[in-house]
């Protein structure tokens, strides 16, 4: 297929798809025109004059989000280990356990975190505890998958060498595989912590604690100066956590 033909075909397929998807949105120039000045005022209210007096509450809620992310990620980090071991293809002869493990992990991973938040709020009441559990369960999905993939990539040579010494499979796992993968596991946990600081901020909106809660509150009250402070503080926190976590992960490699 020539280049020109391919480009034309692509255009022929892509354009109607794009047009169809845009059409459902009731996008009129009038609407955009009306919205822009509103957006401009909002943005200036939020970022040009943030309500600094509101800071103590923001700080307290930010700390809560960090705690939710920290504890939730830590729990997931530990709980994901058996899942990762189950889902790793190279530990037992039969492919059955690893298939089951991988399906389970996928199911956990794709289950919306917000729904987990709702579920735990139902059982534990509103507040940060529900947030911790939602973050923890959701993170097991991704961490378990990363763990399993890492285990599948271990250095086969060292394992072969220990097998020839007559060590049992359990001993080999403990002294050959674990020392190799644990530093990488810690890296994965730190990476997931990064992501969780973001999502912990969000699930608060439905009541699972942290900064999301006051975010929703101030949004409903249309209190833009306070909203602006919250957004600035959240973004700043995410940036700081990201860079610290990146430095630590570099040291671990």
């Amino acid at each position, binding site marked *: 297929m020539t280049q020109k033909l391919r480009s034309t075909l692509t255009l022929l397929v892509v354009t109607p798809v794009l047009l169809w998807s845009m059409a459902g949105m009731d996008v009129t120039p009038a609407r955009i025109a009306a919205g822009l000045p509103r957006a401009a005022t909002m943005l200036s209210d939020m970022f040009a004059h943030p309500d600094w007096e509101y800071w103590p509450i923001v700080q307290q809620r930010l700390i809560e989000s960090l705690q939710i992310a920290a504890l939730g990620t830590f729990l997931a980090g530990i709980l994901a280990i058996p899942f990762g071991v189950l889902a790793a293809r190279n530990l037992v002869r039969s492919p059955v356990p690893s298939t089951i493990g991988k399906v389970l992990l996928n199911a956990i991973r794709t289950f919306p975190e917000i729904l987990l938040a709702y579920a735990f709020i139902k059982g534990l009441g509103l507040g940060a505890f529900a947030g911790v559990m939602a973050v923890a369960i959701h993170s097991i999905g991704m961490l378990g998958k990363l763990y399993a993939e890492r285990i599948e990539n271990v250095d086969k*040579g060292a394992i072969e*060498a220990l097998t020839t010494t*007559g060590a049992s499979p359990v*001993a080999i796992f403990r002294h050959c595989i674990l020392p190799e993968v644990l530093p990488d596991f810690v890296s994965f946990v730190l990476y997931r912590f990064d992501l969780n600081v973001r999502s912990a901020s969000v699930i608060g909106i439905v009541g699972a604690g942290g900064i999301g809660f006051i975010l929703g509150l101030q949004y409903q009250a249309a209190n833009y100066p306070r909203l602006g402070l919250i957004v600035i503080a959240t973004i700043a926190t995410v940036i700081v956590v990201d860079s610290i976590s990146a430095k630590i992960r570099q040291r671990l490699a």
Partner: protein
Amino acid sequence: MSDVSTGVAAKAATLVSFENTSVTYPNGFTALTDVNLEFHEGEFIVVVGLSGAGKSTLIRTINRLVAPTSGDVNVLGTPIKNISDAHLRKTRRRIGMIFQNYNLVRRSSVLANVLTGRLGDLPTWRALLGLYTKSDTDLAIKCLTRVGILDKAYNRADQLSGGQQQRVAIARALAQQPRILLADEPVASLDPPTAHQVMRDLKALSREEGLLTIVNLHFVDMAMEYADRVIGLHAGTVVYDGPGADMTEADFERIYQRKIRPDDMRGAAEH
């Protein structure tokens, strides 16, 4: 330790015997055909041959990394073809092995690596918790001293040079208190001076501990220099079995069935 200096080879115990051993891999390739050999305590044996001739397979059937498809291999009094996993582990305890790529646990310390040589003798709970006994640790230290690398005990294994890592691997094998030592191309990744050093160490150890040592080499000059006995393989069969001291390049050309080339030689120990 046996007193090798008094014995004629025939008087020393037979530790390994191949009985009509054949190995065909699942993909159909036949690596060994009808091999019959006896290896005795204290011998220093070098196996030579082209790649694909079966050197690696021969060594790996001794500790059953590769299983014989017909015939059997008798190791330390046990025919190993059909034994259970538990019995196999017990037999492997007494066979140490070193590899071309050292195969250490890279992120662990040198001492931790040597200690893993003791794992096969530990009860499960000790192995899981990493609680080696004092005698284990003493033995590990002794082995490290033996190969001259005790000062690096707490270094991470991957911080060491190739020659040093191979010495750690040898120490790990020694920690098993083996009767047989297998070496699969132990010096192929090392520069000439280091390679010769490792071969000298292996030979000395073998003599001092009375170990049956079987080494795979594709370097013709090293085989001639170090081997007590040379086994030459060609296309899966034994075509030569004799003392190393008397070998000539012509003998090698018969094993290889071609002229000896420069890259078959390792080169001098000194620059």
